[in-house]
């Protein structure tokens, strides 16, 4: 399967999807750990996709989102941001609001 198609499939079949380094149980980068912790704190069920396992996915997601860094959070098919944005949105309460609007919580 083409990388782009594979990524679109993952994004569309998981309401909350985090492209990260490592897995939610054992993140391998501080930024991925931060976002993973925030989602866990909010009791969100999410799919963690370890980009370190597949270089094509790692490059592909950067191109798809037009975003050069990992982690990347998708909620209901929409790219929401990387670590800095998610952290800011969490602290301001905006993330929770978004999750409520999208009927995740």
């Amino acid at each position, binding site marked *: 399967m083409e990388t782009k198609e594979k990524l679109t499939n993952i994004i569309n079949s998981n309401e909350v999807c985090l492209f990260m380094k490592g897995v939610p149980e054992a993140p391998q980068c501080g*930024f991925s750990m931060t976002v993973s912790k925030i989602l866990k704190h909010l009791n969100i069920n999410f799919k963690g996709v370890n980009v370190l396992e597949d270089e094509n996915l790692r490059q592909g997601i*950067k191109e798809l989102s*037009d*975003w*050069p*860094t990992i982690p990347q959070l998708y909620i209901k098919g929409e*790219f*929401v*941001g*990387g*670590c*800095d*944005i998610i952290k*800011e*949105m969490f602290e301001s309460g905006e993330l929770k609001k978004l999750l409520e609007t999208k009927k995740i919580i």
Partner: protein
Amino acid sequence: MALSIKEIKKLITDLMPDATIEIKDLVGDNNHYSAKITSKIFNGKSKIEQHKLVYKSLQGKMGNELHALSITTEGT
């Protein structure tokens, strides 16, 4: 190869001449920074668009020569 604070500032200022930039070297290794950038260019733009502009100013160095730069942006 790592980037110095001076180089990062220059790259950002080239694209946003009015920007106020505060950069901290978080661990003193020229590789993990945080930057607070204020510019009128951010006015009316979403956070994603604002951060994309910063990444654009870094000309593909983000995630390559520049390993970690945490960004906070603000309009004026």
